């Protein structure tokens, strides 16, 4: 492979693999080898070796291999996903042991608690998919665009998440449910006229184009002001609204968050609302980053990446470029070796430590994950299976300095059986004892609220105003608007029963990424390990980062592109792929007119079909590429894919709009 350079454009996929002349490589028989997993890696050479199948590494593998780079992608675990994996309970047990034995660098203090014996706490490990780094995806985000562009979305299923609860004054408030527009988010509750006016003024400001000179100036003047002061002084907003804007909508973690960052984060939420329906974020079914990394690995495999799990790199000679593996195989790596920090080979440990210890601050993320025997529907919007709960700073009895953020997912998301849910909570509090206390305290508050809600008389606590008919739905079933009203008496509530716990897991993850993502969006050689050169490696080795504490996927693609650029010289052709067989593969339905009926049911509904999928009567509501085909719809589908892939303008447009907040900050400070 010739070295890459900016001026020489590499040939596109289509040019390099013209459809008719491509001859497949001959795959030899593996005669006589009884256990395929003990096979040697059957490659003489590869261009890039990647260690670890985490989210960033998997996206990188796919991006490179679609540009014709020969990638060898290995993992020292028996599963995909590395530090971002989705694990079963049995896998998680073993994982905790490995962490505590120091086998998984950058993780520590793992504890797993499974109450009861086999008879009182029955569960099937396989029914659970527990993310080590759970995340949510904004409906306008670079990840979403990339999933479409790369077609990886076809392997995945996404579900909406619209309920964001914020805990304040020892009470839960459900703020955003059932909003039908951005404006509704603010007006759909009993606020004074003046508060409403102030909120609308701020909303207008937020949604103003970032190039607007007044907005630019105001943000610039306040680039060092914290967001709380900014909202108080410039928009006369009061504490409940500020908490909601900053911690729930903005998902900021501390009161000292600077105005440009917070404004960008609040905007991220608002522009994501109403893109796919009345919700700002989505979660992927069966698991988050663990599932998405599997999707990108599959995409990479389709493009020719070689995969082998359970494999360690044991030696690498930067001069001969020969990499040796624990299965006895040796492969020449023509270009770079990319190494995830949880896959660090022994012989590189000291180089890695040297780089980190000397110059890079480490941040802690403490997580507490609890599987409970409750579906927690009380906290979720009708037809949804996920919700967010945020405990703003100082809202807990532990006087938490930073937000505790919780993702709740029940059986409807495929991560646990029906009737159960998983509470994924985390904090970036640097003091680990405080962090653990904060998470336990948040858990207790949620438990108390849940038990109180289900045990007291619902009828007594609610009045007519707590119900509202949703005019958008045909059914006239009243929708519970304020399911948390009963939380008002939370202090006085003594639970009669205990919440049944299936499994509780706690651990600490380290990362070199600042929670504000500044060293991702403004990465330099001095603040990001990706850009550092490794001593004695001939510049052939790149270390990647653990994921940040950020609740969304923001920053992940930016990091992947950083690595991609370091390997290829530019990120211009990152997933610049012409999927040549698109029409072929969608238009192969022999007798499609015969199934027109079912397909039209599935597609007619349009946007409304998304939010009202339960009333859709065919499997047409299915996700992604699982299109129920009739010829017309198939053609429609492929043309919109073409738009997504070919139309650069549109992509840029979307990218401009969604603004990962770091780049926004950058603009603001110009």
């Amino acid at each position, binding site marked *: 492979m010739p070295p890459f350079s900016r001026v020489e454009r590499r040939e596109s996929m289509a040019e390099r*693999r013209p*459809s008719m002349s*491509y001859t*497949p490589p001959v795959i030899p*028989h593996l*005669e*006589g080898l009884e256990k*395929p*997993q003990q096979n040697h890696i059957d490659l003489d050479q590869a261009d890039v070796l990647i260690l670890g199948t985490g989210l960033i590494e998997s996206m990188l593998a796919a991006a490179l291999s679609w540009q014709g780079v020969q990638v060898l992608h290995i993992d020292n675990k028996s599963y*995909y996903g590395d530090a971002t994996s989705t694990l079963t309970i049995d896998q998680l047990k073993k994982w905790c042991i490995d962490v505590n034995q120091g086998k998984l660098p950058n993780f520590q203090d793992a504890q797993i608690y499974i109450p009861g014996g086999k008879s009182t706490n029955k569960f099937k490990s396989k029914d659970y998919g527990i993310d080590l780094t759970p995340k949510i995806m904004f409906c306008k985000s670079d990840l979403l665009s990339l*999933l479409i562009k790369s*077609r990886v*979305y076809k*392997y995945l*299923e996404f*579900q909406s998440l619209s309920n964001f609860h914020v805990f304040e004054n020892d009470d839960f408030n459900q703020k955003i449910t059932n909003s039908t527009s951005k404006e509704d988010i603010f007006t759909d509750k009993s606020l004074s006229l003046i508060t409403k006016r102030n909120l609308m003024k701020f909303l*207008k400001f937020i949604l103003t184009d970032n190039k607007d000179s007044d907005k630019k100036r105001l943000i610039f003047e306040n680039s060092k002001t914290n967001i709380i002061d900014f909202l108080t002084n410039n928009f006369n907003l009061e504490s409940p609204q500020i908490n909601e804007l900053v911690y729930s909508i903005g998902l900021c973690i501390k009161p000292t968050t600077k105005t440009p960052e917070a404004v960008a984060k609040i905007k991220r939420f608002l522009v994501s609302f*109403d*893109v796919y329906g009345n919700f700002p974020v989505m979660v992927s079914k*069966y698991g988050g980053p663990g599932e998405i990394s599997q999707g990108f690995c*599959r995409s990479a*495999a*389709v493009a020719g990446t*070689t*995969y*082998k*799990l359970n494999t360690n790199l044991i030696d690498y000679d930067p001069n001969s470029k020969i990499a040796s593996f624990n299965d006895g195989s040796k492969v020449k790596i023509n270009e770079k070796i990319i190494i995830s920090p949880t896959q660090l080979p022994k012989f590189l440990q000291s180089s890695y430590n040297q780089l980190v210890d000397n110059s890079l601050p480490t941040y802690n993320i403490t997580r507490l994950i609890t599987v409970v025997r409750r579906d927690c529907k009380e906290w979720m919007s009708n037809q949804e299976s996920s919700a967010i709960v945020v405990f703003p700073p100082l809202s807990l009895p532990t006087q938490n300095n930073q937000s505790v953020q919780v993702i709740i997912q029940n059986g409807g998301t495929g991560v646990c059986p029906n009737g159960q849910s998983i509470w994924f909570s985390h904090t970036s509090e640097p003091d680990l004892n405080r962090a653990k206390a904060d998470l336990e305290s948040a858990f207790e508050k949620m438990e108390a609220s849940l038990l109180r809600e289900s045990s007291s008389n619902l009828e007594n606590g609610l009045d007519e105003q707590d119900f509202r008919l949703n005019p958008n739905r045909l059914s006239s079933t009243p929708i519970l608007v304020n399911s948390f009203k009963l939380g008002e008496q939370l202090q006085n509530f003594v639970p009669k029963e205990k919440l049944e716990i299936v499994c509780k897991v706690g651990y600490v993850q380290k990362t070199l990424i600042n929670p504000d993502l500044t060293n991702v969006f403004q990465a330099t050689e001095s603040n990001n390990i990706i850009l550092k050169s490794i001593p004695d490696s001939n510049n052939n080795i790149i270390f990647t980062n653990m994921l940040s504490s950020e609740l969304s996927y923001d920053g992940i693609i930016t990091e992947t592109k950083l690595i991609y650029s370091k390997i290829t010289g530019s990120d211009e052709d990152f997933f610049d792929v012409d999927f*040549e*067989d*698109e029409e*072929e593969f969608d238009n*192969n*339905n*022999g*007798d*499609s007119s*015969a*199934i*027109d*009926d*079912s*397909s039209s049911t599935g*597609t007619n509904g*349009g946007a409304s079909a*998304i939010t009202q*999928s*339960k*009333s*859709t*009567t*065919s*499997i047409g*509501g*299915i*996700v992604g*590429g*699982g299109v*129920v*085909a009739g010829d017309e719809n198939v053609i429609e589908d492929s043309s919109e894919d073409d*738009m997504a892939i070919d139309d650069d303008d549109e992509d840029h447009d979307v990218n401009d709009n969604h603004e990962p907040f770091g780049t926004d900050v950058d603009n603001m400070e110009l």
Partner: protein
Amino acid sequence: MAEVSPTTNRFAQFKLVLLGESAVGKSSIVHRFVKNTFDDLRESTIGAAFLTQTITFPETNTTIKFEIWDTAGQERYKSLAPMYYRNANAALCVYDITSRSSFNKAQDWIKELKRQAPEGIVIALVGNKSDLAEDRQVEADEVEEYIQQQTSEEDGNSRIITSECSAKSGEGVLEIFNSIGRALPVEEVINASSRGRSAGGARQQGGIDLARARRQQAAAANSSCC
């Protein structure tokens, strides 16, 4: 195919996964089924998330669509992801009748399927390259013996479909997919979906089609204002 009125035709979709040792002709069988071609082998796996093909059963007025997932080489070092098996309704375990070891591997894959795949998955054990009968290493009675043994272990619950075919000549290929189609719980899926519930058909309802909404978003962008 039979002329049927669109309003009365019934439809169901299923996910089918391929398994088997490298070079037994997994992709070739699918290409024969989907495109009725042989020689362009791997070319069109490129870019395709999965291939799809429909078959119709005129006697029950039913059309079923297979969403066919190829291994994309990830089977080579036993590195298939859980995603591959998830919600699979059928599996095609392929061996090469001229290779005994490929038949042993196919049995390993069936074991793996029972561990990883959803319960009730329809399994077809298929010997490819029947056009090379003179080099045959796997005899029909061996296959039969293996199936007997499996069936007794499984209390007769899960029947494994067995068959031979030649992706090269096309002989027997369509028949395999027909038998799989007949073994699938088509009625269940159709009934469940007509009640608005999901039950095992390739994917579940309630998700968001990212690409479709994107187009609507583009259209809406012109009319919305803030």
